[in-house]
């Protein structure tokens, strides 16, 4: 296929999809360069899966255009698009052997038999399933099934790979294992991919860029580091990583909570009057003795203490404000005690 040098592997232009009155995909534009691994991250209902299905051809657009390598494909059925999808459950053909599953796409593209066999063997080796050619999906474990699904889609070398939450049905250790596998495969083979997940650690670990989605729109699309450290808005900030929210009202020099009770809060830079939401990540809130070093301080009462293995999580309350903070060891405080909390100004985000 002839393509222009500057063409993106995938280009979404103002794509829109509605279900009745619900707008699932709201005017999304996105370009995936060749070799890029872009993750669509968001809660359920954010439109990430719908977007993926639009690219794959399993749903029809209501407006906009989708191009692969410069050529418009949104009118084509899935079997005429140069995409390959890895589904959540693997979706292997149960009555075909592993080799028959993996060679399916090649057969549809009319590959000669010898070349097919060679490729199938090579890709099964790549996903570390050498020797599994004659097994049936019913004889495989969950992780093995996903590897076969990977091989099946990789082997046809599509313009773009589509991942539909492939790891969410697996247990934790398997998920971590396969996550590393997919990253390794990407490093080795340099395929272009769109990956859909609601698990942010997955998104951060594997992607070149992360697109955080909410209600059919992309809130921010950036490298994982920038999404984490420089969130574009409140939604992105709260979705990525843990954070504590402190809704505070500032007025005539004092800080009060929702119910009007005064809060013993001292800030380095006082914000203007009005209702604010202050966010701090619990890992950035220092407790007790360490707190005194910081310019921003708050005093709160210990509600209860959770032992989480690595850290002790102190659940604290100041007036109507609730927050929690992690500490590597017990601070010596008990439930009911007043404790100091301190943090750097740079670690705080404030939204109106």
């Amino acid at each position, binding site marked *: 296929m002839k393509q222009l040098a500057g063409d993106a592997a995938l280009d979404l232009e103002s794509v829109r999809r509605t279900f009745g009155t619900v707008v699932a995909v709201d005017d999304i534009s996105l370009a995936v360069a060749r070799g890029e691994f872009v993750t669509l991250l968001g809660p359920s209902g954010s439109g990430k899966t719908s977007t993926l299905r639009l690219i794959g051809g399993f749903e029809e657009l209501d407006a906009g255009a989708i191009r692969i390598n410069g050529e418009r494909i949104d009118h084509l059925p899935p*079997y*005429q698009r140069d*995409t390959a999808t890895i*589904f959540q459950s693997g*979706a292997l053909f149960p009555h075909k052997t592993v080799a028959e599953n993996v060679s399916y796409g090649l057969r549809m593209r009319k590959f000669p038999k010898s070349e097919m066999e060679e490729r199938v063997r090579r890709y099964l080796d790549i996903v570390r399933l050498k020797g599994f050619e004659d097994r049936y999906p019913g*004889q495989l474990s969950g992780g093995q099934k996903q590897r076969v699904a990977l091989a099946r889609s990789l082997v*046809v070398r599509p313009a773009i790979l589509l991942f539909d939450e492939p790891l969410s049905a697996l247990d934790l250790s398997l998920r971590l294992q396969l996550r590393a596998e997919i990253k390794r495969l990407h490093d080795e083979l340099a395929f272009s991919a769109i990956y859909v997940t609601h698990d942010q650690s997955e998104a951060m670990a594997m992607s070149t860029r992360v697109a955080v989605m909410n209600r059919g729109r992309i809130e921010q699309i950036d490298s994982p580091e920038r999404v984490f450290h420089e969130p574009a808005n409140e939604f992105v900030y709260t979705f990525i990583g843990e954070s504590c929210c402190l809704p505070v009202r500032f007025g005539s020099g004092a800080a009060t909570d929702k119910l009007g009770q005064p809060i013993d809060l001292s800030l380095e830079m006082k914000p203007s009057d009005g209702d604010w939401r202050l966010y701090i990540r619990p890992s950035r809130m220092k407790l007790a003795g360490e707190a005194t070093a910081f310019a921003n301080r708050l005093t709160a009462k210990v509600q209860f203490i959770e032992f989480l293995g690595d850290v002790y999580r102190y659940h604290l309350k100041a007036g109507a404000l609730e927050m929690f903070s992690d500490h590597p060891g017990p601070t010596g405080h008990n439930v009911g005690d007043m404790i100091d909390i301190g943090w750097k100004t740079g670690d705080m985000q404030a939204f109106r």
Partner: protein
Amino acid sequence: MSDIVMTDGTTPRRSLEPAIFRTLGLAFTVFIVAYILIPIVVTLVMSFNDAAMIRFPINDWSLKWYRDFFGSPQWTDALMNSIVIAVGTAVISTTSGILAAWAFERFHFPFKDLWYLLIMLPLFMPGVVLGLGVAIAFGGLQIGGYSIYGSRELVMVAHSLWAMPLVFMLMEATFRTIDYRVIEASYDLGARPARTFFEIVIPMVSTGIISSALFAFVISLNEFAMALFLTDRDTQTLPVLMWLSLRSAGTPRLAVASVILALAVFACLTLIMIWYVRQLRKVAR
């Protein structure tokens, strides 16, 4: 206070069935088993009777009537007709039923409920009515010089009036259980819908298809009311011949015919069971 629930999910007997219910239950079980088995056992036993009359007690046993059955062209022809028609019905109804069920499962079109009702409607009509209708409407028709009345093909279609809705209903339910992502995976990898249907869908529902075909076969093989109206002396089926012989020739030959008819059904059933077990062993863990 109730007992602990058993791990296999059965309700512990004691709290629900005091002794009186136990004996009633046993008596009822014996009654049911006897009720169902009586005609079967009687027929089987009588088929080995050596005498020419049907009476109990049976004094002499032999295979005489079996030999008589297979030696009589009228009866063996009837058996052949039954089997041919049954196979034809199975083919027609399974094909049309599967295609229609697939249309319902994967496509959208208006008034689906109405069309469903229409397709199922013939199943609820009495065989007499269906047979009469077909006989009257198509009885006099001639295609290329051949009168279709009395033809086996017409009986096949008439039987499909019952068999096709059954296949349709069964296959529609079966199609609803398949993981449609597997179908999407097939499209995704480049297979057109027709190819996907034959290479992926059909094998996945093969047990459903075989069961439906078997049902169609059995319905047609045993059917009598429609066949009575639609067959003539050359194409009469075994049940029709049996019915016509009922009042006149009450000999053990009829018992043999019953046994043979049932054997045909059980033979198919066994073949399918064997095939099914082999499938399971191949594909499952």
